[in-house]
């Protein structure tokens, strides 16, 4: 049994050592998510490595139909490029979800209603190619005027 445990430890250590060169310490991520402007009305400001902020500007209810205002909506565009950092992948799929689901708010990406659960946005996009996305945010008219803040988490996965 002692021999068995020793073999197990040795084999495990060997496997880890062999895998080490393929895993650089930093950056740990295989991909870099780069958010880019796609709309003059919505400047994108890069933050940390894979993070960014998009300012959609002022949201005001559009001319209301005769039955009254229903929702306050803003629609803006941006682009996402996924760069390869420590990967040989040529294509990735992207998913997105809301960090926190604000009651009454609706956030759509390319027409898909986002929730707190990841949703497929693009099944296969080439590494290094910017892809345009349309962001639509609706807030209820009952919500008082003020600041808007939503966080959309994006996940890029290599396509095996």
């Amino acid at each position, binding site marked *: 049994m002692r021999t068995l445990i020793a073999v197990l430890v040795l084999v495990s250590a060997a496997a880890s050592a062999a895998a080490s060169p393929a895993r650089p310490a930093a950056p740990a991520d295989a991909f870099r998510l780069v*958010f880019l402007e796609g709309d003059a009305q919505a400047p994108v400001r890069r933050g940390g490595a894979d993070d960014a902020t998009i300012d959609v500007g002022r949201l005001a*209810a559009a001319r209301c139909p005769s039955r009254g205002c229903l929702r306050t909506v803003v629609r803006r565009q941006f682009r996402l490029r996924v760069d390869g950092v420590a990967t040989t992948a040529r294509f990735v799929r992207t998913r997105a979800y809301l960090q926190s689901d604000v009651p009454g708010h609706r956030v759509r990406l390319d027409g898909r209603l986002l929730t707190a659960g990841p949703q497929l946005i693009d099944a296969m996009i080439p590494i290094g190619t910017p892809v345009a996305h349309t962001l639509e945010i609706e*807030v209820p008219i009952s919500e008082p005027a003020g600041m*808007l803040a939503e966080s959309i988490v994006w996940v890029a996965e290599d396509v095996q």
Partner: protein
Amino acid sequence: MKKLSGLAIILGLLGLHGLCEASGETSSGTLTVTGTIEASISLTVESAGGTTSGTGTDAATSALGSISKFGSAPTGFTLARGAGNWTLSSTAGIEVDKANLTSTDYTLTAQLGSAPASGVTWKLNGSTLGDASMTTLTSTGTYGSTGSYSWDIVVADSASAAAIDNAIQFTATAN
């Protein structure tokens, strides 16, 4: 049998290790969306006498056609003949809606777009309208419901036969 179990565990662990290495690579990032929600109100003309177009918007037009004291009343109007003048009466329906606003009511005013033709008086809710100042129709308007305001055009018998064209400019202000 013990040895077999140990071998199975080793193979299982190696298999799991290999599986982890082969799993898809992922990265994540956060796009933070910022903006400013602004309060707004909107005014629509829901109804008016005459042959009306543009109801449900903020720019409606009512055509009365040819009008005279002894003719028939235009569509949606009644005609009352008095001594020395005659009056066309109807109503105007105005709706004001709000969005992202905590205000509970509004003030509605009206004003003529230009000076009325000589001998012609325009009234809303019984108040004579002018082109120089606004007339308050209500200071406690209810959002989301159509307010109906009486609309009278009084024409003196002495008024010249001519067009009476004018515009009524409504203004809603959140209280």
